[in-house]
Each structure stands twice: as C-alpha cells, then as structure tokens.
C-alpha cells in the first residue's frame, strides 16, 4: 500500500534536525555525568540477579542498591563492587547479592587483581548480551515463521489488573484480529522506585509490570499467534522510575515494544527530569540492542494542550526524541514516535487538520513505525458518536499510511475497556482498513492546498520552538511549560534522590559494551 505525499520545506527539515541534535547533545552531556539507582539495578538484573527478599518482597536488586548507598559505594556503580565480591568469594553474582541481603558487607572484602576482574567482567558482559541477543533472535525467528500482519498494526490494551484475566482478554482480542497487545500498568506503578515481583492479580486501571507477568503474557500470545498464524507483538511500559529495569525485563522476556519516554514521565508523572533522562538513555540502549521498538508519548500532550494550537509541540518533541533515540543506537525502524487524533470534533474541517498532522509525521519520519493514538480527550459517554470518531481515525490512519494504530475504544470516556469494547474496536478497524485498503494509493492532496500548507505551518512553528529550546536548554524549556501546557521544575519531581554523579571510579562495562556494539560509544 502506498500513501499520498506532501511537500515539506526540506531545508527547514534539515535545520529542525540540527536544532534537535544540539538540544539533545547538551542534555546528553549531563546524562553522561550521572547514573541512577535504577540504572544500577538494571545492570545487576542483566548480570542475572533476580528475586525478592523478606516478608515485604523487596526486590533483591533494591536491597543491594540500598546497601551500596548506605556504604557510600554507589558512585562507582554497582557492577564493580558486586563483581569484585563474586571473584574474591568465588560465588556467582546472584549468590553475592543474596549474601548482601543476608548481611555480607562488601566494605570488608579485598579487591581482586584488575586483570582477573577484567577477564571475569568481560565474560559476564558477554553472557548478558548473549542472553539478550538469543531472545531477540528467537523472536525474529518466530516473526519470520508466522509472518508479519499488514500495517497499520492493530494495537489493543488490556487492563483488568489481573494478569490471568488479562490473558483471557488478550487471547480473545488476538482471535478477533489484534496484532499488538499492551498490558496497561496499574495506576501507581510508574512512581514506584522498584519493580514488583511475580504474577499479580490486583491492580487498579491496569496490571503490574513484572517479569513474571511479562512471561505469562508472552507465552499466551505466542500460543495464540501460532493458532491464528500471524506474529503478535507484546507491549509494556518502561517510562517511570524504573525505565532501565523494565527494559531489561522486557529484553529478557522477548517483548516487542516498550513505551519509553522520559518526557512523558516528567510531564505526566512528575518524575524528576535529570533522573528520567538518565534512565531513558540506558533503557534505550537496551531496547536498541534487544531490537525492541520504543514508543514515545507526544500524543499525551494533546490531552492537556489544544491539538491544533499546540500541534507543533508534538513535532518538536518528536524531533528531540528522535535525536535521543539515535544517541542510544536506535535505528528509525525502532522509533515509534507518538502522535494522536485529538482535535475537537466540533472544529470545522477537523478531519483536514488531522490528515495534515498525520501526513507531517509520515513525511518527517518515513521509516519510523509511528504510533498513532485515537481520540480520547473528546470522547464522551455517547459511545455511538465515539464510534464514528474512531471510524474516521481509522480512515485517516489507513489513508496516510500509519504503522501502529492504537485502536480507539468507544467507552474511552467511561471505563477501561470491557471485552466487547475491544471487540467492537476491532470490528471498526477491520472494516475500515479493508474497505480503504488502497485509498492512500488513489488520492492526492491538492498541491499548495490546505493540507500541505498546514503541515508546513506546523513544521515552521516547531522550528521556532526548537530554536527557543536550543537557546534556553531543554530543562529550562520544560520549566517554562512548553510541552503539554505543564511546567516541571529541574529540582522537583519524584526520584531525584535516586540520581548520583558518577565518580572517577565509576564503571559500567555492560553499558560500555552496549554502546560499543551499537556504535554509539562516545
């Protein structure tokens, strides 16, 4: 299927990218000076550390990190002390961590020879990377075997709070035509500075992201995929206080897509910016290496800011996110930048605006599997009206050649989806995608018409905004409330206490290896 094209001012596009690059270069400098507790915990998880401790079921990696902090050993990172201990005590890393939980004090241990440490770490790192690679190859093989469904992929969420109930809902959705299943997290999880453990059955507005839940869903989806004879993608959410760890878990369990966006955490979850930009970097390295597509959250801006007036903030943010992603070694094929169909349906010609915005995303990021979000903000309790809005949404997606289509749910304004709400979403998308299969091949947009003009206008405004951000810096820009009409301060937000400046002694061979492998070593 083709799609119509529009002409963008190519000089302006180039200039926009150079601005975004400069903006992210500045932030990356700061990122490189820092690490976070979650980064370190992720490192330990990559080394195979797993499990929980005590009645409170505190993750072992958290217990270890707390200890390292208590011992003032954190600024060198978790890798070195733990691996050192493994060497000198001749245990594996998991055993060392368990021992720490049981009272082992790393401060009392001698240091191994540097040479020994390096050989040993090298092996550990290789093993860690190999595990990820193996999983990712396994996924690839299944994709090859079962075949990729046509785009736009039909993406549906399940959100019962209970992983076993989620499985039923997800499998049903697959049999009804879903291509991608996302398990929404429980409302509070992104603010937790640890990742819950095991299979869970009690969440609010979603189900906890745990490694075991990932595994359970993966298995269910693969089974269903084999039955329907098409590959089914699994999605979860990384943005939040545990971005790097969730990326590790996703890599280990073979997830295909992760919502992964520091900006979302800052703006919509009030997470500290330094913390989450730092977390984002390592988590994206992992995604890049594990062949996991990231999804960014620009669509959310339009739930609080006006979708016409502030369309350019989405574009500016997409360009910034693209540069952040490139820095972490993500290829365009893995960049699921976000946008949305969120214009007030009462606006005359809203459809033309939506088409223009959708085309702009396509033209700017032709190789990216852009994530297209349905109307949410202007959905009302009139489920029929909402169904009509979703119909036009599906049409625009098909007509403009979008990649990942989050299906609109007719009860968006009422409750998290019931089983048949999801079914009806699929009925709608299946109908429209088939009825309009080659529409994109058959229509053209009038040269210099509304759509082309509007897309260039949004681009121009995005450039102006990028110029401003590049002047004041991204952190200040966020402080000014430039995105989503939401202001966040540099010192505020959750999780700042989990950021630390790396000392001279800091080491993270896994991060280095990833950077090396991905060709982004700086």
């Amino acid at each position: 299927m083709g799609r119509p094209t529009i002409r963008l001012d190519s000089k302006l596009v180039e200039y926009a990218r150079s601005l975004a690059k400069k903006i992210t270069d500045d932030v990356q400098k700061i990122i490189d000076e820092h690490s976070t507790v979650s980064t370190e915990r992720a490192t330990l998880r990559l080394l195979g550390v797993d499990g929980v401790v005590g009645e409170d079921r505190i993750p072992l990696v958290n217990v270890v990190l707390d200890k390292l902090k208590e011992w003032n050993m954190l600024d060198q990172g978790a890798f070195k002390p733990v691996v050192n201990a493994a060497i000198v005590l001749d245990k594996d890393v998991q055993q060392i961590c368990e021992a720490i939980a049981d009272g082992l004090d790393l401060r009392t241990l001698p240091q191994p020879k540097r040479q020994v440490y390096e050989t040993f770490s090298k092996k550990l790192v290789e093993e860690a990377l190999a595990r990820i690679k193996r999983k990712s190859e396994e996924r690839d093989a299944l994709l090859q075997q079962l075949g990729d469904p046509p785009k736009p992929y039909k993406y549906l969420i399940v959100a019962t709070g209970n992983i076993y109930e989620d499985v039923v809902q997800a499998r049903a959705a697959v049999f009804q035509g879903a291509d991608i299943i996302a398990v929404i997290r429980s409302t509070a999880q992104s603010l937790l500075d640890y990742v819950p453990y095991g299979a869970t059955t009690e969440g609010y507005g979603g189900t906890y992201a745990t490694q075991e839940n990932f595994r359970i869903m993966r298995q269910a989806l693969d089974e269903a995929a084999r039955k329907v004879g098409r590959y089914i993608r699994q999605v979860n959410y990384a943005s939040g206080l545990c971005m790097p760890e969730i990326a590790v878990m996703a890599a280990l369990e073979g997830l295909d897509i992760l919502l992964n966006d520091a900006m979302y955490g800052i703006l919509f979850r009030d997470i500290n910016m330094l913390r989450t930009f730092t977390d984002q970097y390592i988590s994206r390295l992992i995604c890049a290496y594990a062949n996991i597509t990231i999804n960014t959250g620009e669509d959310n801006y339009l739930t609080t800011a006006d979708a016409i007036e502030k369309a350019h903030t989405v574009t500016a943010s997409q360009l910034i996110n693209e540069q952040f992603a490139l820095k972490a070694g993500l290829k365009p094929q893995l960049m699921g930048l976000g946008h949305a169909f969120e214009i007030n349906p009462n606006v005359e010609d809203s459809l033309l605006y939506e088409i223009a915005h959708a085309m702009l995303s396509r033209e700017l990021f032709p190789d990216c599997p852009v994530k297209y979000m349905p109307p949410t903000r202007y959905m009302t309790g009139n489920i029929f009206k909402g169904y009509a809005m979703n119909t036009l949404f599906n049409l625009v997606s098909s007509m403009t050649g979008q990649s990942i289509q989050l299906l609109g749910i007719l009860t968006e304004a009422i409750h998290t989806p019931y089983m048949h709400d999801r079914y009806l979403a699929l009925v709608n998308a299946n109908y429209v995608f088939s009825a309009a299969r080659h529409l994109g091949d058959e229509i053209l947009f009038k040269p210099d018409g509304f759509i082309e003009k509007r897309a260039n206008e949004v681009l121009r405004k995005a450039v102006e905004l990028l110029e401003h951000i590049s002047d004041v810096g991204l952190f200040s820009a966020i402080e000014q409330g430039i995105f989503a009409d939401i202001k966040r301060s540099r010192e505020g937000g959750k999780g700042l206490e989990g950021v630390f400046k790396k000392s001279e002694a800091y080491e993270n061979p896994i991060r280095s290896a990833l950077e090396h492998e991905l060709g982004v070593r700086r």
Partner: protein
Amino acid sequence: MSERNLVRPYGDQMDDGAVQLSFTLPVEFGPLAREAAKKFCEKLGFYEVTIATMEDLSEGYTFFVVYGKTDVAVDLSSIKVIAPKVQRLPREKIDELVLQKLKRPIVVVGATIGTDAHTIGLDSILNMKGFHGDYGLERYKAFKVYNLGAQVPPIELVKKVREVGADVVLVSQVVTQRNIHIQHLTELMELLYAENLRDKLLVIVGGPRITHELALELGYDAGFGSGTTPSEVANFIVQELLKKRGL
C-alpha cells in the same frame, strides 16, 4: 468456562454483571430526566448505574446511554434450546433419499404473504443460487419448487397449494412492525385449517425476526431466523416429511 452453570454478563471481571443500555424517556432534558433514567435502571435490577451520556432530543424527550451492573444470572442447566432438530445430510444424499422413499420430488410452495414485499430471504432459500454458497431448493432433485413471490394473499397461496398438491408450504415474513407478521401468519394457518389442508402439510415460516419458538406457538411446524441456509431447511423438510408420511 464450560462447567459454569450460573452465568452473568461479563465486562472485565467474571460475574461483574456489566451491561450497556440505551433508551429514550419522554421527559424533558434535565436533572429530573437523569434521576428518572437512573431509577428506571435500578428498577430493572441494575446497581452502580452510570449515566454515560444524557442528550436532549427536544420536544420533551431525552436519550440516555447507561452502564450498569446486575446480579441477575441465568442458570445454563435450566435452558432448553428450542430449535428444529436436523441431521445434516449432503444434497446428493437428500436427493437419493427422497427419490428412493417418496419416489417423486417433494412439492414445495413458497411465498411472502400479506403486504410483505421482501422476497430476498425466501428467494435465497428457494433459488438455484441459494445463500452464502449454499445451493437453494431448486437445485435439488428432491424438490419441485413453486415460488409465488411477494405480497401473496393467503387465499391465493392456499389455492396454489391445492392446485399443485403441495407437500410443504414455505412462507416468509420480514416486516414485523406492530406485529403485522403475526396477523398474516395467523390468517394463513386459519385458512389452512378451514380448508382441511393443514394436516397433510409441513408448514414452515422464516424471516429475520422469526424464531422456532414463535413458529410453534402459531401452529407452524418450524421457524427459521436470520442467517438460515437452504440446506438446513432442505434437511428439515425431508426428515420431517418422511417421518410424517411414515416413510
């Protein structure tokens, strides 16, 4: 799931009893209308009633979309499915059976009776072409079909039945507004009795809003609803008729 007997509607948790309703009340748009809608749903046995939307239809009417939960459950073990019992034989088998046992094709007269002009449903049972890739009765050697078309007065149909010595009458009823189909169907059945034809015949009715249950109530031998395929009807006719004729 299969061992569960007591079932309730399902939204996203087993037995949550979630149901969507929509309706209009003849009440002026406003707070009173909202309460009236809520009360109405509660009287139906719903709780956690959410008025998802309430919209002004003008002229003193208000439209509602409501979600509610109910504890009303259905005991599956208490349900008897009332449906024509049919064994599924292939067309060739049916043709063979009839010619072998009855020694002649079954004579079928079909019509959409009364003021009803919808022929497509009946045609798709009778015509060669059939329905959804399933051939119609005309394609069977087992049947001789007379299709009288639409808007046939019952009396005309009865005349034809006599004229051709029909074994089976197939009537279609699509328009059901103000229960006009009941009127038409009753009229036909009374005529058949009056003319002493009822007993010899298989009398079958079909249409999108027809159920087997309704058909039995009205004295018909079977009722076929939406999505009926000709082969279902063919099988039913043959099996019932041979039984009826003691063959």
